[in-house]
């Protein structure tokens, strides 16, 4: 067992897959000698060399497109686009085309491509917006967002082995945070399996990414009031583990959905709709959503803090589902 940060765990996952499969390579901006932004690729160039750790020009659309082309020819490319705000530059290639290829080709084409992006409000100013919902809406692309180092490594390994395009999102607020014991060996975390990370009877909090930790802090506060909650860490928005969500709501009868992405048409809305459609009979109270309002993220730290969901807002939402 080694104690690693999320950044180190992701890199270890990539390195293990590159050792296992010579068809795996990575390309992106400043990922060679520089080691990638926030050390996202630290050590890979030294081990695997410039042929498989490929520095590219600032051409996000071009390199994601090249990833699609190489994947169609049987490689397993990983493309590091640095930050999620550049998703706008690759939506045609990743969203409209790559996601459709398997279906449109009647199953002949496969696009085993991982697109990595950092995002998330945290210690770094800028590049922080959570735009994952743009892609979650489109058919054929998986969207992974680990909440901790262990999952980050196992999910990256699963993403590389997956025969579909995967948008792999790495939260900058978690990146160089808590170290965790990482199991050695082939610890793959399948994409599409949510995890119950805390158990209670009164309410279900569904969260993902950095919001999982905030939900846990809210749960500790609520526990002091005698309110015990389930926390479902989604881990992936696509595939969505509907069964895990419904199973928990069937038990608790109350649900709060937490999302760092914007509320309007965000993935939290889809989860609320899922429970309204398929689990309405379990509900004892209206569903609550805690999400970032639809406003461009303001710059000043204190303003930024006001709009991102926190443990106080999550706990308050749980209490609202409990009154009556």
């Amino acid at each position, binding site marked *: 067992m080694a104690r690693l940060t999320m950044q180190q765990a992701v890199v270890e996952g990539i390195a293990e897959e590159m050792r296992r499969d010579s068809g795996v390579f990575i390309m992106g901006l400043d990922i060679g000698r520089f080691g990638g932004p926030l050390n996202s690729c630290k050590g890979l160039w030294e081990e695997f060399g410039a042929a498989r750790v490929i520095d590219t020009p600032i051409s996000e659309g071009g390199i994601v*497109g090249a990833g699609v082309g190489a994947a*169609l020819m049987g*490689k397993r490319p990983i493309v590091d686009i640095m930050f999620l705000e550049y998703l706008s530059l690759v939506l*045609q290639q990743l969203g409209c085309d790559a996601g459709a290829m398997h279906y449109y080709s009647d199953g002949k084409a*496969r696009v085993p491509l991982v697109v990595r992006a950092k995002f998330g409000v945290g210690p770094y100013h800028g590049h922080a917006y959570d735009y994952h919902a743009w892609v979650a809406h489109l058919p054929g692309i998986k969207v992974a967002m680990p909440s901790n180092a262990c999952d980050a490594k196992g999910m990256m390994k699963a993403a590389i082995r997956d*025969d579909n395009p995967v948008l792999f999102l790495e939260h900058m607020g978690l990146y160089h945070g808590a170290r965790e014991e990482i199991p050695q060996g082939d610890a793959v975390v399948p994409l599409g399996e949510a995890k119950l990370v805390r158990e209670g009877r009164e309410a279900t909090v569904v969260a993902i990414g950095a919001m999982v930790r905030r939900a846990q802090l809210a749960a500790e506060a609520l526990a002091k009031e005698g309110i015990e909650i389930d926390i479902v860490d989604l881990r992936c928005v696509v595939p*969505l*583990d509907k069964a895990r969500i419904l199973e928990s709501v069937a038990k608790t009868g109350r649900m709060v959905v937490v999302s760092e992405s914007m509320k309007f048409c965000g993935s939290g809305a889809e989860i609320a709709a899922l429970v309204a459609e398929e689990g309405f009979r379990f509900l004892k109270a209206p569903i609550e959503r805690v999400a970032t309002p639809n406003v461009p993220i303001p710059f000043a730290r204190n303003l930024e803090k006001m709009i991102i969901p926190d443990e106080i807002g999550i706990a308050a939402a749980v209490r609202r589902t409990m009154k009556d």
Partner: protein
Amino acid sequence: MTARNDTWIALHRLMLVTRELDRVIGAADGHWHPALGEEGVVAGCYHGLRSGDALVPHYRGMLAACYARGGDLARLLAGLDGRATSYSRGRYRSDVCGPIELGVIGLYSGALGPTLEYAAGAALAAKLDAKGGVAVAVFGDGTASRGNFHEAVNLAAVLRLPVVFVCQNNQFAISTSAQQEHGGRIVDRAAGFGIPGELVDGNDVVAVHDALQAAVARARRGEGPALIDALTYRVGGHMASDPGTYRSGEEVEKWKTRDPIALHERRLLAEGVLDAAGVTALRAAVAAEVAAAMKQAQSDPMPGPEVLGLDRVFAGGGNGGTSVPLFRGA
């Protein structure tokens, strides 16, 4: 017969197929994008690649490209209106997207440009494999205005990828003329990327073929990408139903005198590769082949609901959710 003669006849045959497809499909479908007048570029690019090479065709000429890769003409034509016998079984249109199993990377959406990046990626895969594979990407002069062109060619240049980019320069983007499209010649951009560029007469199928094969050979040797600007003219409309109000009839007539099929036919006769009877027989054979394929395609069935495949969006199955029947309904 010499190898050269075989090649010249094959080029002629592919041009004839391209034109016959235009004639037959265009008569029935006003939305068809004809390659009329551009057959020299189509045949010059798509004949003579190896089976392992990646071919990334322009949409105008896609069916001919797939046919040149060994595609079944009836199945390709069945894809025009999504019949069950088509390569995608009706899930996508064959006129812009050829089957990947033929080594063709088509357009999986209506946006032009990203396919040049897919070609660069296919070339990157070939470079990693180091077995001499190449990619050939063909695009229109309209597409050349897209940022994708610049990103793809620059990336290929920087990484010295084995890819040949060919501009099927028909001098129009729908109604937008070359003068309105480009501040300079497309071929001159090659110098800016630091790669070889060559301007060829796109109406001379042999010139296109020879230029492409030279660039492909160079790429196979690991000497990097090249750009070919194949200058031709779109004698047909953007679509079969295009009234062409944006250009003069004189201009179109002038280019008709440089018809690539007529030019090459004269060469075949002059060089004694074919005699008049041979030329006529080739035309008749192509017309019969296309007619038979079209007849077959039009009698093929439309897809049934089993093709819909709502759980076949992802490789390995699934549609993005893992639900359980337990929770369905009341």
